């Protein structure tokens, strides 16, 4: 369960948990699970990690999820509504109406914006209040509803949820512009914290055990060979390499994690038996927190001869 304790409480508890008596049949000494590391895992508004996430463009929904009614989403602990107005422009607004807090998921999409169902206030995609029907005061001039900039790129909807004056340029990742590659969007919900999902790419040994040795072979049969693993670093980026000896070949696989939670991995059908050079990622993904205890992978799966000349992943 999520806690609000300061970092010092976590460090203290970690020390005492590690100092527990280590003895066979000693479950009693470890019966209470220790608390989580809030600094790395909590993502709500104002939390350290939440502030960190709010410095990047992050994907928040699939374009294909939008329809003629608004889509309610939860990102970084904020309840939001995303919609495409009738002119085709995207909007991302805080869920609760600025009038009396009714949910805009029940709003009506109009030409220019979204109209609240309760008393008819009309919102532009940038949070400007266009109409406050029957109000005699000029409320709408004094208030702006919470809104975030959005970009749709290759079927994913990206938002920037940070301080407006720190908004970076929208990045176009090299692997999204390869010749003969089709990027197909997908997302998967996980009922747990974002970090443990994100960490997987930097846990190269799980591929040996989980994916090949412990129960079934999930991907290539060569994945059970013990790799040589190394790590390389650049600002805000970590690269893990897995290098396998496969008979008279050396297979060098690199995968990366880039701030805040972007990662790419190579083809899941690769076995490293055929000579090849600089074959690019088959998955380009983010782990995006809904809140402290829920997250999604939201991603593109790359198809086509540019990444998969033999069609092994089709």
């Amino acid at each position, binding site marked *: 369960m*999520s806690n609000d304790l300061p970092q010092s409480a976590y460090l203290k508890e970690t020390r005492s*948990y590690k100092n527990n008596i280590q003895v066979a049949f000693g479950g009693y000494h470890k019966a209470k699970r*220790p608390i*989580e*590391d809030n600094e790395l895992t909590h993502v709500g508004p104002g939390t*350290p*990690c939440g*502030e*960190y996430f709010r*410095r990047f463009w992050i994907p928040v929904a*699939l374009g*294909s*999820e939008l329809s003629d009614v608004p889509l309610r989403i939860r990102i970084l602990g904020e309840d939001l509504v995303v919609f495409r107005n009738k002119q085709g422009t995207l909007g991302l607004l805080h869920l609760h109406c600025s009038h009396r807090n009714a949910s805009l998921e029940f709003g009506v999409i109009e030409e220019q914006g979204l109209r609240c169902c309760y008393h008819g206030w009309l919102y532009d995609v940038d949070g400007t209040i266009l109409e406050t029907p029957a109000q005699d005061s000029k409320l709408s001039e004094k208030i702006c509803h919470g809104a975030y900039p959005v970009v749709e790129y290759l079927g994913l909807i990206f938002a920037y949820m940070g301080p407006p004056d720190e908004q970076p340029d929208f*990045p176009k*990742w*090299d692997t999204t*512009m390869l*010749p003969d590659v089709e990027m*197909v969007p*997908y*997302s*998967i*919900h*996980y009922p*747990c*914290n974002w*970090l*443990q999902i994100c*960490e997987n790419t930097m*846990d*190269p*040994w799980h591929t040996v055990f989980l*994916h090949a040795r412990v*129960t079934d072979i*999930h991907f290539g049969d060569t994945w059970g060979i013990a790799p*040589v693993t*190394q*790590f*390389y*670093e650049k600002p*805000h980026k*970590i690269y893990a390499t897995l290098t396998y*000896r496969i008979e*008279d*070949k050396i297979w*060098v696989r*690199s995968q*990366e994690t*880039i*701030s805040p939670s972007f990662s790419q991995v190579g083809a899941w059908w690769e076995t*490293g038996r055929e*000579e090849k*050079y*600089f074959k*690019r*990622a088959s998955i*380009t993904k983010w782990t995006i927190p809904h809140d*402290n*205890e829920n997250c999604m992978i939201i991603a593109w*799966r790359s198809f086509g001869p540019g990444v998969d000349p033999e069609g092994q992943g089709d």
Partner: protein
Amino acid sequence: MVGKNSVDFPGQTGQEPYEYRQRHPNDYEAQVSQGSINAHAAENLGSTDKGVAYLRRKLRRAIRAIQAGERLPESERAGEEFLTHTQDTVLPIPIHPSDDEQLLKDVTDAVMEIVFEGDTLGGDERASFIESKLRTLKNDTRFTAHCGDT
């Protein structure tokens, strides 16, 4: 099928029957079962977990930098492109009779050096630069000295 809650490789969504998931656990089972928020204090990280420790350390440093009021640096770009470096390379280099592990490490360093060297270029130009340099490694005497004359 690739889309909402669906991808074309197994074990990612936890939608199979519970008993099947117990007998055939995959990514979803391993990661979600760590707990609703994985308690790092109860873990015991060892030599195979360097990457995880590394990621957490880097994340903590970045989080604290933002807390201290720092702004993020611009990422490496070649023109409009944000450069990434995930890749697979398979080289025909025979096994080293006495220290193959060291050979694998050295070849990996050489591959990554070339992959990073391409950062000044973009698009097709970068890809062909990296590819043609990687191709030379199979004949590089640093890695083939143990093979004798071929």
